[in-house]
């Protein structure tokens, strides 16, 4: 965290190498990013457009909704400035699948299935996946069939010719809510692209033998800046595929937005009440929500700095954090309204001492076991 601030204060952002770029832009937000980079965006426009294929699996469209909430620039402006052709996106595109007597009809101008086939054939695109992928029942993937094809097959085909794959949202990253513990979770067998819960061996790509670089943008939903800035950095060449091992954590999350040494609690608007030892035990109060189950001490996200929806608020301003950016969400956060285990560690400690603990360490003070659990250990 301190490093990030230092970078921001002391480094000429235009001269940054690719790695520090990834660190720096995250703190600036999309609008500063695009205005700072106007020259480079103009030159980017002189190059070929970047195509994006955005596939929807088992999802709620919440991630796309979140993307549409991007402010200054909004998503349409950003795509325009970055010369992105959002070539396929089921919620937004003009086309739809049209079949006449079982055969695809019309052209790619109106038929989404022809469009998708063409795009995959042409290659040279970034593949974004929103939503999880069912392997069930019995490995068939038929719990989600679109255009007569199991969704897992469509993802596999689209992945083949993609230059990079970005998993957007908890479902695409680890299965998310579709993979939460229940009596039926093994039967539906929902997978994320690179993980199932925290297990990389059970990720869809490993299962299907696909070897492609994957970036995870978790969150339920993810912040639109996380999505746009990641795509922007890839498009502008600020991040190359070779850089990924150094900028992603073990769960393939960009450390810039999901810093290993920073949690939401560090910058929580209610932090002052926590430092004073004032805790709410019901709804509607102004105090720290630890006792109402707030998981901000375990949530590795820059939410409280970046803020949400045009920076007007953040979850913990209004209610408890549910740590939706962590692997294994939602199981890792349940029960949502019960303080994470080991409350003795926090409440037994001298609150004044806790207040002096440096940023980032508070999470440890708040419950080592809980942190481990969040990581699925």
């Amino acid at each position: 965290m301190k490093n990030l601030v230092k970078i921001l204060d002391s480094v000429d952002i235009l001269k940054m190498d690719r790695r520090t770029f990834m660190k720096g832009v995250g703190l600036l937000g999309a609008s500063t990013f695009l205005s700072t980079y106007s020259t480079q965006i103009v030159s980017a426009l002189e190059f070929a457009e970047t195509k994006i294929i955005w596939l929807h699996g088992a999802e709620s469209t919440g991630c796309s909704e979140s993307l549409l909430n991007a402010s200054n620039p909004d998503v349409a402006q950003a795509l325009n400035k970055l010369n992105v052709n959002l070539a396929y996106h089921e919620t937004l595109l003009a086309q739809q699948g049209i079949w006449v007597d079982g055969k695809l009809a019309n052209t790619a101008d109106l038929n989404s299935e022809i469009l998708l086939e063409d795009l995959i054939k042409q290659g040279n695109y970034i593949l974004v996946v929103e939503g999880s992928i069912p392997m069930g029942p019995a490995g068939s993937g038929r719990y989600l069939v679109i255009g007569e094809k199991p969704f897992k097959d469509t993802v596999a085909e689209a992945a083949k010719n993609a230059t990079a794959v970005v998993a957007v949202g908890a479902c695409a990253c680890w299965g998310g809510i579709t993979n939460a513990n229940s009596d039926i979770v093994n039967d539906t067998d929902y997978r994320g692209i690179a993980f199932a819960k925290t297990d990389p061996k059970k990720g869809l790509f490993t299962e299907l033998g696909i070897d492609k670089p994957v970036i995870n943008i978790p969150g339920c939903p993810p912040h639109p800046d996380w999505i746009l800035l990641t795509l922007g950095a890839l498009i502008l060449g600020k991040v190359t595929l070779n850089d990924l091992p150094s900028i992603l954590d073990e769960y393939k999350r960009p450390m810039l937005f999901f810093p290993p040494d920073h949690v939401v609690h560090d910058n929580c608007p209610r932090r002052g009440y926590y430092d004073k030892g004032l805790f709410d035990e019901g709804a509607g109060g102004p105090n720290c929500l630890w006792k109402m189950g707030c998981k901000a001490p375990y949530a590795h996200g820059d939410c409280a700095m970046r803020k949400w929806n045009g920076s007007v608020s953040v979850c913990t301003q209004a209610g408890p954090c549910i740590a939706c950016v962590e692997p294994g969400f939602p199981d890792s956060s349940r029960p949502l309204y019960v303080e994470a285990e080991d409350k003795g560690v926090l409440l037994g400690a001298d609150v004044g001492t806790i207040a002096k603990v440096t940023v980032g360490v508070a999470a440890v003070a708040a419950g080592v076991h809980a942190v481990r659990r969040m990581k699925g250990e």
Partner: protein
Amino acid sequence: MVNVTVDPLTRIEGHLRVSTEVDANGVVTDAQSSLLLFRGFERILQHNDPRDAALLVQRICGVCPLSHSLTSTNALDNLYGVAEQVPKDALVTRNIFQGLNMIASHATHIYVLWGPDLANPAYKNVLATLGDTGNAVWKEMVGRFAPISYKIDGVPVPAGSSYMAAIPEKKRLQEAIAVIGGRMPGPVTPYPGGYFYKPSLPDIEKLASYYLEVMDFVSNYTLKVPFDTWIANTYKASSPQKAVSFVTEHLTDLINKTKGSNDFSRAAGWGDAEFYAAFGSELVGEKLLGLPASLKHDLIGGYKDPSKINFLSYGGYYKPKDGYDPKSPAEDRIFPSGVVTGKLEYLKFDSDKITESTAHSFYQNSVEDLQPAKGETVPFTDPNQIVYNNDSKSRYSWDKAPRYDGIPAEVGPLARMLNMKEPLVTGLALAFNEKGYSAANVYTRMMARIQETAILAHELLTWVTVDYDPNGKIAVPLDLEKGKNSTGMGLWEAPRGALGHWVSTDGNGKVVTYQCVVPGTWNMSPRDSAGVPGPMEQSLMGSKINAVGNILGVDYANPVGIFHIGRSYDPCISCAVHTIDLTGKNAPRTLRIL
């Protein structure tokens, strides 16, 4: 007979397949609606703290997460025995929260999901036959409603002005929700007994300023007649006839002004709502206003047999007083509960009259028709049985077929406006009925959505500036003991229609059963045990598949009529199919697909 299938029907939430049989005249003779996705929602709530439901059920749908969250909160209010004590200011805050989301959801549907079909090239071809006037109308349609990344005949078409302007407005509305919800989507504030966050005076001022900005959009793009004038003469009109007369007189003025110039621009007074109100309907546009042509959206998406359809509302938005009745009697909510029959008779809503059939769904239940609370679900686990290209006698959807008193029901803005006897929509429905059209059709469905958006904008201002008191009480304490061995029912209205959640707990206060009956289940339902098709299926049958009554002949490869009808319901498939019970034999047997 030609099979014309749309799969996927895009620009909706989730994954939907619409399969039709079309005759040589381009008229649909048979239709099947298939929901293609199967998740596992209610099961993940089992054995857990019921309070988690209000946040986790938001993940059923990212477009209307607040509706699920508030419906769940209603069920939890009931479960913990606090519904009658929820403070007035918490209820008003919930109204604001839901109202903002419903406006945003409708605006997204109108401009981003549904509107682009008005830029379908079929309209260009039809309108070109009408000379300068036709070309001028096309120029408005493609200029306002074309989506991003759009091409006609391989040539890129710039995104429409209304489409582009609507995206930041939707974003602004979401920002307003975040002011009182932390973030959007995924707000963390719905909580039984009240609301988690107490909006402050500065928050209320922010909401007011967002409101003014959104109303700027409305007056610049949607409605050129002053908003208050519109509300006073439609929503507040003394009779349905007066509301319709006001609109037709206003449109007549516009037509008279435009005569000779072919200027249908917004600058000439043609807001998007006025434009569609006049040109969308044959009855309104051609017969009442004397326009040379219309899109004839009133001739598609209607019901041929009024005895096989109801319009159902569970009731939404609390009256500004402490406490509410979880059973939602008609007088308890601002948007009342009720049932309007296909013949436009008004009945009282009784939740005991809901049953669900699985005769045409991918389930192997012992009994096909059951009340939701007793429902069972034994789905196919053999992949070879999950097929979508068999005929309408087969099983073809993950959706069940809910019926009210044995009859399919349409839910959503049209059903709500009819149940609340909203003058303009009721007046239009009566006029269509009288002239031999179906009261429900693509045009009335869209006009109801537009009018409901206006009504909510009107009510919202009252909630924000009059009803809400920043010094009031925002929650009553929750006694978790009362949530043991208890049950709760939450009835509410989502943007897409009637939404119900039911919860029960064990002696440890953990969830035993959790069930949802959602709008998409009703509208997109397959056939029932008696073989009666669901609302969308019925509304496809007998409709023409091409633009403007197939005037240029039949084109199976661009069935824009099917696109319009399907999207006119604003389908939300994630909501409609959100649960699965692979065994059906484990207690409890009440976990169901919806």
